[in-house]
């Protein structure tokens, strides 16, 4: 009796406390002290943009530093930022006139020396920047006079402005030479709209409005202080948002966003992103002989997964199913590729033809959205492919792939918000560490596309590469991502599809 009673009351207790979350009334006090509190999900390696690979790092870099040019997120046009004008001298030389009178946060004057120093540093292989591909299209950089520089490329590189706008922030040469990447990571100094007040590595960043910010295309910042804490758990982020501890959270899962939308204190905005999810397979057998060296097996995977159901039920928002190995809006991306509709019977048939009538068991790798990885695994299990999940951090998975492991997995790529196929297809199919297709022809087409300035030539070559990738089912592209931005009603903010959160565009209502 006593026991039954205890259990009942326990059940009641837990049910009672847990079931009703109740109305969400909070006095958000953050507008009053002009401080926007927000969160990062990932502990970033460093604030120094060149020595990290996270979305969070890109976001920080846009606040702290400027690039030579700026891509207007609404129009997609390139406008001058640290540069005022530029022109192609020939196919491989791009000349920039720099803006005069700009000062870094520490008072250092900005001029050509800063640009030359930063770029030369980043392209020097001895410095081991984290993502060499952001800069290794640059052969050299040269100073013509105090406010003129020339960028030389190995071969024509049509995406140069795109790369320069987001992936090459300019550092103060004297300061960087003195403190190096470690110092820059701890006390970053730039020209950007926000200067860094404090950095606790990986966990807490405080930005202050830079009063001396130049009148560039980013506009003047409005909110005085941005306080960013790393809260890796989305659930804790929600708890903070609901209890008034933070004002803005992004990347909120669809289910939560749906629930939060009903709150009168919060604004929920869904915006598409350039990120796509895909299943990669070890077609070339880099990691040893495996079933995916057989094309029919790869195609079976394509037919096994109900991508539309995943989009409708798990991704929701503005996500769409994608068939080519790129985001539809990217220059060079095409829809004219072979598609694999959801057809488990055909998948099983293909597996039988390939010699796996009873399927097989294999390791499967993933690093984010575990529920989606699980959903994919369940679809695969239905046709006989037993996938054993290995859930790693991205850096660990990437390392594994460079060592030819982890050939079968669910991965995603956000193209660093670069609206060009060279930022995705060329990243993964030109015999790099994460290329498991190793198709010479694909590489040749991509090279041709990457190095031509003729839009038509580029499109033709990229199409060929993308069609081959789809035909051979090297990748099974799944869907595009969307991001839910949830913020308090006090915040005035319009998210953009490039998944870059611009604090300098925000203001209080």
């Amino acid at each position, binding site marked *: 009796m*006593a*026991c039954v009673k205890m*259990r009942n009351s*326990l*059940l009641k207790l*837990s*049910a009672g406390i*847990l*079931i009703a*979350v109740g109305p969400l009334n909070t006095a958000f006090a953050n507008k009053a002290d002009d401080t926007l509190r927000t969160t990062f999900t990932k502990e970033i390696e460093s604030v120094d943009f060149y020595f990290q690979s996270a979305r969070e790092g890109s976001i920080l870099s846009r606040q702290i530093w400027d690039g030579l040019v700026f891509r207007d997120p609404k129009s997609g046009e390139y406008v001058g930022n640290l540069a005022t004008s530029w022109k192609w001298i020939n196919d491989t030389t791009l000349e920039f006139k720099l803006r005069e009178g700009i000062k870094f946060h520490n008072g250092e004057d900005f001029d050509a020396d800063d640009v030359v120093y930063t770029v030369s540093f980043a392209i020097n292989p001895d410095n081991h920047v984290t993502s060499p591909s952001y800069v290794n299209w640059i052969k050299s950089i040269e100073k013509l006079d105090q406010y003129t520089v020339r960028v030389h490329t190995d071969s024509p590189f049509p995406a140069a402005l795109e790369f320069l706008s987001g992936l090459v922030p300019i550092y103060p040469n004297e300061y960087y030479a003195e403190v190096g990447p470690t110092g820059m990571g701890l006390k970053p100094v730039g020209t950007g709209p926000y200067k860094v007040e404090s950095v606790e590595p990986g966990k807490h960043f405080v930005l202050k409005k830079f009063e001396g910010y130049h009148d560039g295309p980013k506009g003047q910042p409005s909110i005085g202080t941005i306080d960013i804490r790393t809260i890796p*758990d*989305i*659930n804790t982020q*929600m*708890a903070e948002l*609901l209890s008034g501890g933070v004002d803005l959270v992004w990347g909120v*899962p669809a*289910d*939560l966003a749906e*629930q939060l939308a009903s709150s009168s204190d919060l604004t929920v905005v869904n915006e598409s992103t350039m990120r796509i999810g895909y299943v990669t397979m070890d077609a070339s057998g880099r990691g040893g002989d495996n079933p995916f060296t057989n094309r029919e097996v790869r195609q079976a995977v394509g037919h096994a997964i*109900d991508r539309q*159901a*995943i989009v*409708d*039920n*798990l991704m929701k928002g503005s996500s769409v199913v994608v068939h080519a190995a790129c985001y539809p809006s990217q220059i060079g991306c095409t829809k004219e590729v072979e598609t694999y509709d959801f057809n488990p019977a055909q998948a099983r048939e293909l597996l039988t033809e390939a010699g796996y009538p009873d399927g097989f068991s294999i*390791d499967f790798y993933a690093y984010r959205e*575990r*529920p989606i*990885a*699980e*959903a994919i*695994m*369940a679809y695969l*299990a239905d046709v006989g492919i037993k996938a*054993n*999940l*290995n*859930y790693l951090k991205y850096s660990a998975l990437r390392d594994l792939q460079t060592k030819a492991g982890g050939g079968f997995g669910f991965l995603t790529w956000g193209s660093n918000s670069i609206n060009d196929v060279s930022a995705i297809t060329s990243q993964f199919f030109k015999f790099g560490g994460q290329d498991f297709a190793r198709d010479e022809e694909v590489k040749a087409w991509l090279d041709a596309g990457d190095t031509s300035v003729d839009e038509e030539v580029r499109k033709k070559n990229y199409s060929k590469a993308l069609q081959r990738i789809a035909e051979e089912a090297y990748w099974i592209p799944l869907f595009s991502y969307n991001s839910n931005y949830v913020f308090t009603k006090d915040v005035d903010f319009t998210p953009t599809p490039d998944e870059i959160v611009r604090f300098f565009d925000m203001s209080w209502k």
Partner: protein
Amino acid sequence: MTDTPTQTVESIITVTPGALLRRRLFGHYGLLFGLAILVLVAAAALFAPLLTDQSPYAQDLSARMKPPFWMAGSDPSHLLGTDQLGRDYLARLLYGARISLLIGTVTALISGVIGTALGVAAGYFGGKVDLAATFLINVRLALPVVLVSLAIVALFGGSLQIVILVLGFLLWDRFAIVMRSSVMQIRGLEYVNAAKAIGCSKTRIVLSEIMPNVINNLIVVMTLEMAHAILLEAALSFLGLGVQPPTPSWGLMISEGKEMMLFQPWLITIPGIALFLLVLAINLLGDGLRDVTAPEAKG
């Protein structure tokens, strides 16, 4: 008048140790409660396929997060609702009991064998053997269990076997400590000396003279370590470095339900209560067994 004391004496004498044990057993509510829950969970695990016709792995993305029966909008075919992928929660809970019990039992067996061997050897032989065993116990205690298990699982991948092996090889310390001191207490007793005197082999002495007298303690520690292992597995799975999805581990269920805990709290309440009750039951059973077999140590 004169009969009564005699009768009493007789009745005292006729109480066999077994009867006394039974009397204590049934008078101990904690033990009974623990046993009852444990039997229930074991039965649920064993007969899971009979109790539900749903598969714990079958997903239905169009029927996600259906609420359990006591809430509005529930679906009679999913008594405890469905999870984020539309998998039947009852089926996952029942099959999850298998995982928890399997981990608890096998871990306790592995660590029991290691710890008992070490503890008995130390207690029986004393001297250098004891010194070495004490040293090993100290080393083991100094290693932070959670971190070391996390690290090993991260290096070798998370599978049921690895989690069981890791925990089995880490949780033997209490066995060793308890066995060592229990054996020390009895090794000097007369019957052990008698066995030595008549020339019994060491193996024989340990197996037939020592072990039967320390088995009670062994069982008590075993229950505690079972509970410990179940909780640790849940914690590791919760941190993402334990049993891997889609295995229906209760810790994993809590971890997966956590994302929606603010709006669908039952997703973590159900496996949380299941885990709590199972561990509570095993602990009560262990405490009860200790009280019953060694009432003087109660407390």
